């Protein structure tokens, strides 16, 4: 598939005395919503981190947008292929510190209106901007972390079980954001057990013992 945004070819990842990912090959088309399922400890998150360059494959190749992954500047790649953690850790003192960071790393002027719009997108109030991060609930932290990745819209969003442990209202808000972004053309790779996300996806990949078991 020549127009694939991602091509994984025989990708493997091993640590001493243990193989976590072996011989994984698949492609993802631009704008596609692909979910990655499988039992706990099967290597789903490891696979997502390989795609995110947060781990480096010990075998095989990953091609992004027609070029080998390792030919990109890591910072530029990660701004285009944005990875969201399952249990995010907010940094600094306030929500503002977290939402200012994407502007700071790009040396762009901090735009508070954009921050407020982003908060609104995940149903969080504008006055949360100055709130200390220690005052936020788990669901609020997860949503702040998500919009931290979305203030500068990436080309690909990698979601690592980001709705696990969230209440129904928060989950719905996150699902709505993901769905809208996908409709706007954003490519999404999501590790998930969530039925709504599975149903919304174009395709499901299943990883068992570090190997691609099923592609539906």
């Amino acid at each position, binding site marked *: 598939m020549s127009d694939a945004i991602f091509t994984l070819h025989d990708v493997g990842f091993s640590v001493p005395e243990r193989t976590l990912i072996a011989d994984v090959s698949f492609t993802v088309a631009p704008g596609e919503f692909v979910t990655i399922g499988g039992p706990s400890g099967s290597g789903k998150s490891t696979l997502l981190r390989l795609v*995110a*360059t*947060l*781990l*480096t494959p010990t075998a095989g190749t990953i091609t992004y947008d027609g070029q080998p992954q*390792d030919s990109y500047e*890591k*910072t*530029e*790649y*990660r*701004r285009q292929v*944005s*990875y969201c*953690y399952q*249990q*995010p*850790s*907010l*940094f*600094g003192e306030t929500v503002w510190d977290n939402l200012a*960071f*994407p502007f*700071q*790393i790009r040396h762009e002027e901090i735009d508070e209106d954009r921050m407020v719009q982003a908060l609104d997108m995940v149903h969080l109030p504008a006055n949360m901007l100055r709130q200390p991060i220690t005052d936020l609930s788990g669901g609020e932290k997860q949503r702040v*972390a998500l919009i*931290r*990745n979305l203030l500068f819209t990436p080309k690909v969003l990698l979601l690592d079980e980001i709705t696990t442990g969230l209440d129904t209202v928060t989950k719905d808000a996150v699902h709505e954001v993901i769905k809208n972004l996908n409709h706007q053309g954003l490519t999404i790779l999501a590790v998930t057990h969530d039925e709504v996300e599975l149903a919304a996806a174009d395709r499901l990949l299943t990883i068992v013992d570090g190997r691609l078991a099923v592609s539906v």
Partner: protein
Amino acid sequence: MTQLIVTPTALIFAVALVVVALVISLKEKIGLEKDLIVGVIRAVIQLTVVGYVLTYIIRVNRHWLTLLMVVIIIVNAAWNARGRARGIPHAFAISLLAITTATAGTIALLVLAGAIAFVPSQIVPISGMIASNAMVAIGLAYRSMNGQFHDQRQALLERLSLGATKYQTAIAVVREAIRTGMSPTIDSAKTVGLVSLPGMMSGLIFAGVDPTKAIMYQIMVTFMLMAATSLGSTIACYLAYPQFFNADLQLRNFN
């Protein structure tokens, strides 16, 4: 000027003070007896050797010998600072560069300003003061950096995943580590004269120098140590933080 002579008999009586510490350690089961004994033996041997060496260096008064002594002090300080680095790659080279720059820079400024003369009796003790303070500052900075990279690992990983550079990821850690390294010098500068009468000033007063003149030297030492610890810990931290990342801009595991 009063002649200061501590006789060997007086030193033997001083051993009684160590015995007090040993008895407390034994009675309270603190478990520091071995460290105390090793410390006492090392202090006696090291100071005796350095006493004779300094007597010789001061007597012959050669530049190369003075510089050699300074180099030995700096290398030892760097080796000790490296011990606090708990696995940070190239910690010895980084410490050596940081302590050399801090010591050489500060000494050069003091000599050029005429505050001290380039004679062994002044250069060697002042170098020792600077290098040891820089060593402590760098050791504290390393410990702080290691602790932060460990405790804040998740937040640092998230900064990387958002597309931050090494510098953007670690700058808050670096700043905190420099603060930690400098804090003993700054605290001691704040309380100097109120809590402690520090070594330089006490030594001069002991030797019979007018306290108003002794404070001039102490003020110089205070400023000199501020400059040296800030220079040393800043250089060490800026050279050490990239060691926490690998070539693929991922966090390394080494401690």
